[in-house]
């Protein structure tokens, strides 16, 4: 299935990407997806912490991704 990934803030510099579509196996959990991201973009290791959002909402526990979900990588925010 296809998953669209959006990068923001410092992660655009670390990965050189703003938006990519990754093809992954069905029934993939968000935690497993995070491992795939780490493998593909090893520079993300340089970031102490980042959150993930699926379809414009923070994920606070492990969920399964669905085809065409949009995953956003949210480094520490600094609005205001």
């Amino acid at each position, binding site marked *: 299935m296809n998953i669209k990934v*959006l990068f923001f803030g410092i992660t655009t*510099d670390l990965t050189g990407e703003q938006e990519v579509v990754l093809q992954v196996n069905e029934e993939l959990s968000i935690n497993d997806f995070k491992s795939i991201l780490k493998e593909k973009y090893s520079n993300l290791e340089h970031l102490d912490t980042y959150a993930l959002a699926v379809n414009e909402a923070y994920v606070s526990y492990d969920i399964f991704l669905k085809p065409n979900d949009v995953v956003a990588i949210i480094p520490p925010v600094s609005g*205001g």
Partner: protein
Amino acid sequence: MIRTSIKISSQKLDVKECYSFVEDDTCGGITAFIGTVRNETEGKEVLQLDFTTYKPMAIKEMQKIADKALEKFDIKKIAIHHAEGMLQIGDIPVIITVSAKHRKAAFLACEFAIDTLKETVPIWKKEYFSDGEVWVNAHP
């Protein structure tokens, strides 16, 4: 009655608009937090700031904050507006206004809104110095 006004704009934010939105005859006061771009960070001169947003999600998170403020405090209306794009020293990145029957709730709701915005809303600022630029809070 619409009790919240949420906006992210690349145009100059309008204090009067946020003030007018929350004005209400049943209220005894209005509080406002107006963020302004400071000219230094830890002693280093800042030239300008660039704000990027994950706009659809940021709007949703700002709406959540406004809804939560209405639920948590005895307030009438709340406006939360944030700027995006390049801002110069003295420009306004954020405006929050709150109206309430009594002042205490208005002060508390305003503080709650800006504190929560800084923690949860997907907006990032990059500080530009004379010798380079840095994503704020990123600590890579």
